[in-house]
């Protein structure tokens, strides 16, 4: 019996050591995250961005981030260069609708029309449902009135496309850079991966 005692106890010991070793080896990402915190301004990807176009977005309880300004790149801005008179006067003067290229697929016209967002007596700004003026550069405020869940996710960083690199500060696309306000849904299309598609066609 004594002859077996040593090898058996040795095997058990080795097994135990191995078992302990395994549990020590396993590392949880969440533990690592909790243990270490770094300064977010440590690295920089500033050079990937168009600095002169950045606008800071500060919302309560959310980290600060940036978006690009819009007014410089909206082709027909300022709107008042055409909209010199009141909308009703202009409508009466011509029979053609100058914005016939705009098709409205946002929602039912019972819910909203052009003037839900655009301001008839000052076309250079937008306005909220409570008639508070909103700048074209801050159009996210307008969208956020109804799309509150998406707005929260966008402010936190879960929704929306990030520009530049992963390094702080975050620069995000604003709502209307992906979703046309008049036709906001994403369209269906053929997938982009060309090599695969070629094979499929052959």
């Amino acid at each position, binding site marked *: 019996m004594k002859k077996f005692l040593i090898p058996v106890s040795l095997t058990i010991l080795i097994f135990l050591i191995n078992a302990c070793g395994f549990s020590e080896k396993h590392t949880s990402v969440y533990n690592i995250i909790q243990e*270490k915190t770094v300064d977010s301004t440590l690295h920089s990807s500033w050079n990937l961005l168009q600095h002169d176009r950045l606008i800071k977005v500060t919302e309560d309880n959310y980290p600060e981030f940036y978006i690009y300004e819009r007014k410089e790149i909206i082709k027909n801005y300022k709107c008042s260069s055409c909209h010199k008179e009141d909308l009703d006067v202009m409508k009466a003067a011509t029979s053609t609708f100058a914005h016939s290229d705009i098709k409205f697929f946002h929602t039912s016209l019972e819910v909203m029309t052009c003037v839900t967002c655009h301001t008839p007596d000052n076309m250079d700004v937008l306005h909220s449902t409570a008639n508070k003026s909103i700048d074209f550069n801050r159009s996210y405020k307008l969208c956020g009135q109804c799309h509150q869940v998406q707005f929260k996710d966008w402010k936190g960083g*879960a929704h929306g496309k990030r520009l530049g690199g*992963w390094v702080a500060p975050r620069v995000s696309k604003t709502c209307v850079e992906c979703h046309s306000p008049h036709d906001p849904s994403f369209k269906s299309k053929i997938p982009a991966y060309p090599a695969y598609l070629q094979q499929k066609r052959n």
Partner: protein
Amino acid sequence: MEQKKSNKNKWFRLNLGSNSKSNNCECKSGLESCSNKQLNDGYNQKLNISMDRRTAFKKITASLLLGAGAISTSCSVISGDVNKEKSEIEWEEYFKGNYKLMTNDEKKETVNRLVRSYELKFEKKISMSSKNANEDVLFGYAFNISKCQGYMDCVNACVQENNQDRDSNMRYIRIHEMEDGRGLNFDKADDSFGHEVPAKGHFYMGTQCYHCENPPCIEVCPVQATWKEKDGIVVIDYDWCIGCRYCMAACPYDGRRFNWSEPKIPEDELNTEQHYLGNRIRKKGVMEKCTFCIQRSRKGKNPACVEACPTGARKFGNLLDPESDIRWILENKKVFRLKEDLGTEPKFWYYMD
């Protein structure tokens, strides 16, 4: 006593197959004859080998031929300088060590050699980096299943960025088209659809290398050609990989790819911004996989898939930075990872709106 001492020094010897009694020195004819019985170790294995005259001659001739060949190519006055340089580079590349163990200077040297050798071969300049992991960075990735539309712009960008073989349709990213109401069923999912997307009644889910914190793939590599870098990226030294594909079998997520043939990339589509551990041109018979675009991410850029995604379904960032959007997602959205029960701890989360 002397015998025992010398045995102690040879701590590295594996006594596999040798008779354990021979160590105890049973012979009674004195110490000298005992020491003769010592096992051959290290170079002694090669030098103290007993062989007859015929095999000895054979071996000598073979090695002479080999050596003469190598010397004639590297030292020959007749062959041009270009050939000479080529074979010099080849020679040094052949005997270089594992990238993981290299010093920064050695890394730079091998990168320079590879760049030069490409220039000599194709008369085209490439730039290759050997940039080490940044301090205080742990990369993480999040994927929004609600937002992915199956456009596959990510796959396209990945193939181009990472110089993947066009002939075999190599791709690191797979987009699985799954039917609504059937859960995450990868068996029934289609990852090679060509119809218009998003298809009605379907959702899309991308998979790739998850850069696990406890990666099973690196445990099984017999030559340690794959490892986890300090910033959490799991990488492969393509020059150290022997192509046994153990890692491919060990990966529970189908994240690794094998080069069955010489990768072919159209010359005008070659990405010349390369990293030793990333998108440099691979050889036939080595493993490769997603590296979170190490050549981009270590410079502060987003991986090519993240940049290409038109829906913003792909998120990438530093997990250690509490202000980053990836951390906001982990803390505020309902996230999950695949096969969590395996304990692999992928740094790749899925979430929904």
